[in-house]
């Protein structure tokens, strides 16, 4: 009998990379469903194009470079889906493909592949597209083809949007495919926390700091409404729950995750108040991505047996 001699542990849990990734896809389905319901079939088509081109780009990259095929980890599906959900449904397909290929090839694979990338691939691609095609990426249509401003655009005035808070919660507003309904995104977030895919620390710290800042520095006479509109409008929910929690680009220490979430929140509000665009989530998270390794370094957990501040 040939006995295997290997290091302990001799049993492993059933967590698997592909399962975690597919859980994220499932968690994004409610948001995609609302996007398709409100914006029409094209929302679904854009998402499909993005996912297919992401997977295709990764397959081609592995083929060309002779690297081991990594499609089975399903992470390309997540990247493609996340990118699509940040785009308007009316965006030309060519732009979607370009973004998707950039996300996979440049932002992920060329940085060393899964887990090694410094920037969130979907957001890096979105940032690129925003610089190249600002018009196409900020052109929002309602189902009837009439272009309209998103609630967040109104808030630049500054003024409270016309849409009711309930409409924004449920997603009956113009906007990017996956950013319409806070409810759908929260459902996805609860699913991910329940499945232990993410810890709620980053989303809570992120949304919490946005809430506090917009409450204190309200631009209208009604700080509570201003805060709620700030939380429900734009990409902050999608960003806080799905983008800022990206494993590769966020800290692993508990304290680091909280700091990182707060950093994202502060920068988001900062960009929204002073930036070129009404939205600031993309650049806020990308900037914090750069700080991730540094944050991990300064937030090492307290050593077992050593009180805080004590030296051994």
């Amino acid at each position: 009998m040939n006995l295997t001699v290997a290091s302990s542990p001799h049993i492993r849990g059933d967590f698997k990379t592909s399962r975690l990734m597919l859980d994220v896809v499932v968690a994004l389905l409610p948001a995609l469903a609302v996007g398709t319901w409100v914006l029409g079939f094209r929302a679904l088509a854009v998402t499909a194009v993005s996912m297919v081109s992401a997977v295709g780009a990764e397959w081609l990259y592995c083929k060309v470079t002779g690297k081991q095929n990594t499609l089975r980890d399903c992470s390309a599906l997540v990247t493609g889906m996340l990118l699509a959900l940040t785009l308007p449904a009316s965006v030309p397909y060519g732009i979607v493909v370009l973004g998707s290929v950039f996300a996979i090839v440049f932002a992920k694979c060329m940085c060393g592949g899964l887990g090694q990338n410094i920037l969130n691939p979907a957001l890096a691609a979105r940032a690129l597209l925003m610089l190249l095609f600002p018009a196409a990426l900020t052109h929002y249509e309602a189902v009837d083809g009439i272009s309209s401003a998103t609630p967040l655009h109104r808030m630049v005035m500054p003024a409270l949007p016309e849409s009711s808070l309930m409409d924004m919660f449920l997603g009956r507003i113009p906007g990017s495919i996956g950013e319409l309904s806070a409810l759908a995104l929260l459902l996805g977030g609860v699913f991910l926390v329940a499945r232990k895919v993410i810890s709620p620390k980053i989303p809570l710290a992120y949304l919490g700091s946005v809430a506090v800042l917009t409450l204190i520095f309200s631009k209208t006479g009604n700080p509570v409404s201003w805060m709620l509109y700030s939380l429900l409008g734009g990409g902050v929910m999608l960003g806080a729950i799905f983008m800022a929690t990206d494993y590769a680009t966020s800290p692993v220490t508990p304290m680091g995750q909280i700091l990182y979430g707060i950093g994202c929140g502060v920068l988001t509000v900062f960009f929204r108040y002073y930036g070129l665009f009404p939205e600031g989530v993309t650049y806020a998270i990308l900037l914090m991505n750069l700080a991730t390794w540094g944050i991990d370094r300064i937030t090492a957990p307290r050593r077992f047996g050593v009180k805080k501040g004590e030296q051994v």
Partner: protein
Amino acid sequence: MKRRFWGGIHPSYRKELSVKVTPSVAVIPKQVVIPMLQHIGVPCVPLVKVGDKVLRGQKIGDGEGLCVPVHASVSGTVIAVEPRPHPLGKMVNAVVIENDFQDTTIPPRSSCGNAEAMDPDTILGLIREAGIVGMGGAAFPGNVKALSAIGKVDTLIANACECEPYITADDTLLRTNPEQVLRGMQILSRVLQPQRAILAVEDNKQEAIAKVNGLLPEYAGIEMSVLPTRYPQGAEKQLIQALTGREVLPGQLPVSAHCAVFNVSTFAAIYRAVELGVPVTSRLVTVSGEAIREPQNFIVRIGTSFHDLIEVAGGLNDSTERVISGGPMMGIAQSDLSVPVVKATNSVLCLLKDRNGAAENPVCLRCGKCVSVCPMRLQPLYLYRFEKAGNAGELERLHVMDCIECGSCAFTCPGKLPLVERIRSGKQLLKEAKSK
């Protein structure tokens, strides 16, 4: 609120496989191999030579320093004194005894008896002469541990957590002979004079808990603490943290947290040594796993080969992948089944291929799950990374030496990284870098 320890995991326990009401006595083999090193410390010097007749319980090896004696587990003739494979994965000098099947046993030591009438030195002497080591797996000489704790501890802990999956030896001991454990605790309390003597058990051993509860009124000064089941609660540092909230200082022993922890099997052995005057010549061993035909607990003579023991349990399934000495989380995989059961062998585990096993291409996602399950609050992903990079300085900064190798990180890792293996080699790397 019950105090808890950090991190931890909930593996599938599979304890039901081997739980039987009474342990069977394993068939006593034709030959036993008694290694001269069954403890942490200096190996024994053999006291017998080839051709000598020995009796069961006769001392056949002893030595100076950090050393406890070993005894013959059967009566018969010494047929070899030579290096033999040891479950720790190395060759160790051993006395091989051909069994005469008479089981002629030496009389109990004359100094044994009621511990209440003994002074601590006599008790420690009896513990040493009986060859008692930490029987939960650590194998630290029992008398030395007790001696070093005198006057420094306020809490004596009997560890019956048995948090490793599959193993039910301590559970079986508590279900069948709880008196021996409780009496052993009283005996050691006489030596250490602690304020509290706690029997710690996880809540997945309800029958044992009920048995002990029924007996507790008769054993003054002993209390039981039932802890919510979670791995690695039975690790010394974690158990102390769970029971008292105290943390053992980095690189130090439990006395730094004013605690002394012994396994329940060790307490039972202490009782038998002090009040019955008999040395360690057998122990309870769980033989379990999906690859063994009849999983159960056995009373096994020390020196019985894994091969013989496996045969008694119905033999191995054809697709057996690993045979492990110890538990599935921290045990050592064996290549040679001629290795003997030693004093610290609590389990012989026979496993099929793990369907969640290693990936061909392990990739770290940076998901951080290893950080959240680490009971020592280390950052396994960074230890892995810096070991790969050969960076001893960073390994030291991240306290690689604090790792207790419990395997929670590797168990949880979705990327299937060989974390424990690499961290172990990271410790080696740091040691070498420091010795330069």
